[in-house]
């Protein structure tokens, strides 16, 4: 896979976040502070600006720069979390060639590990991790079954969507929604939703 393929992912993710900005902010209004969509849109538009200004020789350099841009532009908790994902994802791909489904799996694992380390969330806390964790498991299982990259990413996106839907009845235990206590139940987690959008975008573009 070439650098251009990963550039396509970032561009597609940016337009997806833009198209879903109101939807994400609406979800965040119910149990958070009504800024998730605007923040993700601003962050990914900055990534697009980065792609316009610079060209990248390697996937790891591209992903690390994109990660630093998200950290700098998104703000909130989502900036450090998504930024850390891309930083670790890129670092894991440094010097890797060719980039196989297994290599993407290793990078995926490193990225999710970074989110876990920074966010300290557990499964069922009603956070983005509830989408990331099953997505990573599904990806690994698909690769183990002999699936190619496209198949594995599709499985990951489907598992993320299931994880996202499963956040609805949960009572939040991390992040701003946790301040609502029991009242956070009955709402879909905005972070798990944007994670699913990002992985669906990967499944569309990284194949």
């Amino acid at each position, binding site marked *: 896979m070439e650098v251009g393929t990963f550039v396509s992912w970032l561009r597609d993710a940016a337009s997806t976040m833009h198209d879903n900005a109101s939807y994400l902010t609406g979800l965040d*209004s119910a149990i958070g502070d009504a800024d998730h969509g605007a923040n993700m849109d601003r962050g990914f538009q900055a990534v697009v600006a980065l792609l316009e200004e610079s060209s990248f020789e390697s996937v790891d350099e591209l992903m690390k720069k994109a990660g630093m841009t998200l950290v700098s532009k998104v703000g909130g908790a989502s900036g450090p979390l998504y930024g850390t994902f891309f930083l670790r994802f890129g670092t894991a791909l440094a010097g890797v060639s060719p980039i196989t489904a297994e290599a993407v799996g290793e990078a995926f694992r490193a990225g999710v590990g970074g989110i876990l380390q920074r966010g300290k969330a557990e499964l069922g806390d009603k956070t983005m991790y509830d989408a990331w964790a099953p997505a990573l498991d599904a990806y690994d299982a698909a690769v183990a079954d002999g699936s190619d990259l496209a198949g594995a990413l599709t499985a990951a996106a489907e598992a993320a969507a299931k994880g996202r839907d499963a956040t609805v009845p949960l009572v939040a235990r991390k992040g701003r929604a946790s301040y609502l206590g029991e009242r956070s139940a009955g709402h879909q987690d905005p972070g798990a939703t944007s994670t699913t959008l990002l992985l669906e975008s990967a499944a569309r573009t990284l194949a």
Partner: protein
Amino acid sequence: MKKLINEPGDVVSEALRGMAAAHPDRLRVDHENRIVYRKDGPRPGKVGLISGGGSGHEPMHGGFVGLGMLDAACAGEVFTSPVPDQMMAATRGVDAGAGVLHIVKNYTGDVMNFEMAAELAAADAGTEVLSVVTNDDVAVQDSLYTAGRRGVGVTVLLEKIVGAAAEEGRSLQEVADLATRVNDNGRSMGMALTSCTVPAAGKPTFELADNEMEVGIGIHGEPGRQRLPLAPASEIAAMLVDPVVGDLPYQQGDAVIAFVNGMGGTPLIELYLMYNEVAQLLDRAGITVARSLVGNYITSLEMAGCSVTLLKADDELVRLWDAPVNTPGLRWGV
């Protein structure tokens, strides 16, 4: 949405331009990094104090930059934490060789971004950084199953008291220890009569009927712990004071700094009416008010409502509270 704005996306940067224009004697603003600096800093040998957070809480934090309080404040988007780049730049900008204290309110985003900034500063080498996280909101249970208590009203009192201590030339460790002591002795609880509208969202974060109120709110327009029927001020005061007093607990004979804070949309006449109720409740509990503060200091845009903060205060804290301060938001003794 009816607001005095041009474009929703320009609210923070244009407000910072206004602060710079209004207070050229006291403030210097780095517009690119969105940092409000004290005009006469950094001062050699003085510990640098920086804070920051989402915008929409004015005068906190930019309005608390100046003599006797903060050296710099980083402004994020409305209700969104600033980013590590800003905190790094501010840390470098206020470092006068005595180290820098980060004052962080306990919100997931703020804590993560300040942590990343501290890690980057360590890698960058040079500046010694310590952090204090405020978490005084008794509406949130502090347990493994939440993000912990929110940092609210005590942050204002802490920035004033710790600012005075830094002005005296105390060491970074002494200033950090004092900050921890202030946070440990302060508790707050807030309520809302209305929601507020984040400019980028364009509509109120939640809907409240005319006969309803939210109790146990934070400062980001988020709904509170409970929605209750609207009640007289005397009953609302008890709903705020009782859990605060019971939590530390504040006891008969204790002296406190009592702070009735407006959320941004409540007139001062109602805040004084509330303060009267709060003072009576404290008097009945045998708690002495050593000093008081009434007004809009840590707000949630145009939300109507208030919060009550108590800080158990010994003679030293009262003396530091009384020390000169000259900021756009608080000014006395100068």
